[in-house]
């Protein structure tokens, strides 16, 4: 039952020239990523919604019909009119203008919180994963404890300790987001340590640590981007929540949560516009980030639809 053998040429496998050759072509992957992302309607709607908010934040000075804090007792608590699209609050401040200026404060808070937690969390996670052993174990157990807190309660505790203010909100929200980044960086570090290119780098005698970090960073970029969009949404919600109960930004400032607090003070008078519009602004922004995050996850994991 033996078959006649025919000599069929085998194609030789070219050996990798260097460790760099084994590294995934990051630039190319990013290009592919953007290409598929552009075809994802969810992500694009999210991006558009965020774009609107960023536009409002950047150009509030020029778009807003009134300054953020122009008190005018002649037009106190007015429902929406042509002069005041979203009505006025109990100090006669124009709510439309305040919502626009609010985009600045809220985006700044969220951005600062996300950047702080990104830096602290990533360094923490990368070191934990690199050192390994007992240190890693203890470090991750600390993250468990942080995540063991119900999020908002923890934020309240921190805000309570620090006293009201924008910095307080930034710090309270940032601390909550550290574990997410730490875990991501740690697991990326662990896989980078055992990966082919780390081995190859070692084999050709390159600086192991340098290579590790050089490859770690591009590999983490995309998942970090995804986590960050979702963390942005969380940050805005939590910041607004803290301001609403008076532990965050003072009600004198045009911050969305604080504006809702002002509206709540007049709640029983039926002045619905005072809290409705700032709330819509929050929902719009957070929805934008969540849609973008969803779209990103779809793109990264096509099985999820």
């Amino acid at each position: 039952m033996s078959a006649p053998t025919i000599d069929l040429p085998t194609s030789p496998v070219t050996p990798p020239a260097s460790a760099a050759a084994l590294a995934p072509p990051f630039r190319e992957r990013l290009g592919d990523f953007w290409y598929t992302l552009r075809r994802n309607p969810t992500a694009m709607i999210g991006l558009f919604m965020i774009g609107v908010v960023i536009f409002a934040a950047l150009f509030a000075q020029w778009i807003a019909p009134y300054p953020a804090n122009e008190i005018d007792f002649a037009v106190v608590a007015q429902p929406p009119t042509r002069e005041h699209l979203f009505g006025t609050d109990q100090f006669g401040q124009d709510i439309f203008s305040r919502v626009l200026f609010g985009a600045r404060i809220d985006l700044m808070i969220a951005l600062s919180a996300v950047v702080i937690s990104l830096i602290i969390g990533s360094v923490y996670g990368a070191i934990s994963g690199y050192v390994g052993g007992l240190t890693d174990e203890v470090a991750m157990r600390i993250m468990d404890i942080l995540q063991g807190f119900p999020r908002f309660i923890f934020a309240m505790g921190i805000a309570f300790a620090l006293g009201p203010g924008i910095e307080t909100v930034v710090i309270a929200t940032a601390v909550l987001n550290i574990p997410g980044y730490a875990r991501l960086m740690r697991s990326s570090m662990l896989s980078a340590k055992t990966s082919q290119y780390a081995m190859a780098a070692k084999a050709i005698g390159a600086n192991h640590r340098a290579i590790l970090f050089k490859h770690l960073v591009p590999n983490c970029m995309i998942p970090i981007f995804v986590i960050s969009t979702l963390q942005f949404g969380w940050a805005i919600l939590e910041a607004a929540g803290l301001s609403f109960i008076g532990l965050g930004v003072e009600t004198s400032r045009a911050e969305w949560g604080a504006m809702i607090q002002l509206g709540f003070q007049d709640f029983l008078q039926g002045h619905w516009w005072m809290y409705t519009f700032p709330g819509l602004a929050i929902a719009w922004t957070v929805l934008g980030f969540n849609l973008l995050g969803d779209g990103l996850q779809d793109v990264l994991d096509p099985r999820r639809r």
Partner: protein
Amino acid sequence: MATTATTPHAVAAMPAETPMLEVRDLETQFFTRKGVARVLDRLSFSIGKGEIVGLVGESGSGKSVTGFSIVNLIKSPGKIVAGEILFEGRDLTRLSEDQMRDIRGKDIAMIFQNPRGSLNPVLTVGDQLRQVLKYRQGMNKKQAQERATELLRLVHIPEPERRLKAYPHQLSGGMAQRVMIAMAISCSPHLLIADEPTTGLDVTIEYQIIQLLKEMRDLTGTSVIAITHDLNMAAEVCDRIMVMYAGKVVEQAPVLQFFTKPSHPYTLGLLASRPSLSGGDEIPTIPGNVPDLIHRPTGCAFHPRCRWATQECISIEPLPREVGPGHTAACHHLEEVQRDIAAAH
């Protein structure tokens, strides 16, 4: 078993007068983001009653898709777009989902590769067997329990009562595949499609599973389509072998003919790349890759990888030609191929 089994059948490879399954010009396509992949390309073949037919080819040749097309369980974005699947006189492609569901399990059953993953991890073996017997055979609890035990005994699982209480993760791969076979034959199907049933199992277990498949055929007279990339296994179990390439049958022959007089260049490549027990140096592989099914090669799909290819192969698709009794091959250069083989010896 004997109570519901159909008449015990003598082992006989007879491409019968009226085949039990006849596939005609079947086209299954996958509508992917990058374009339409024509995975099955006007595929035609037939299976006789009680016959074990091996469906061989590299991964990506469309073997498994053929199996799933027959029972209409192709995962999206795959779809049957043309052709007929005549099973005992009925065209399966025209049946409603409800009619099709009634055929699955009772008339046509399947077993899969990765048997442990194919069993439900949170249900016991007994739950899964009894479920089939309850909903497909209308048995009550007691009957189902008895029959389940009997089925496990039939596939040579020791201590069946204890195994019924086991969960899939507590079984070895071979044991899990036996359970799968027990489930598949529980409703005495007329056709059993085994999709790479021994992949991932070690050699001795593989042999036992193959023997079991043969035994089940002898016992129940069911026809079997054995999908595999393992020619040794096919040699062991099949009456007839069909070679698939790029969604077409390129050669089919009774098993003896197949190994003594392989005719299609692709078959020769497959046979040459078979790991031999005599050891030796390297396993020669067929150069090149399975073709891109979105942009299929013109003419003969194998021409980019074929050393006999000529201008004719690039422009004209070869039709199956008779090589011997029940033996066909689709190639323009059968004669040259045979001459070169003779010269090599």
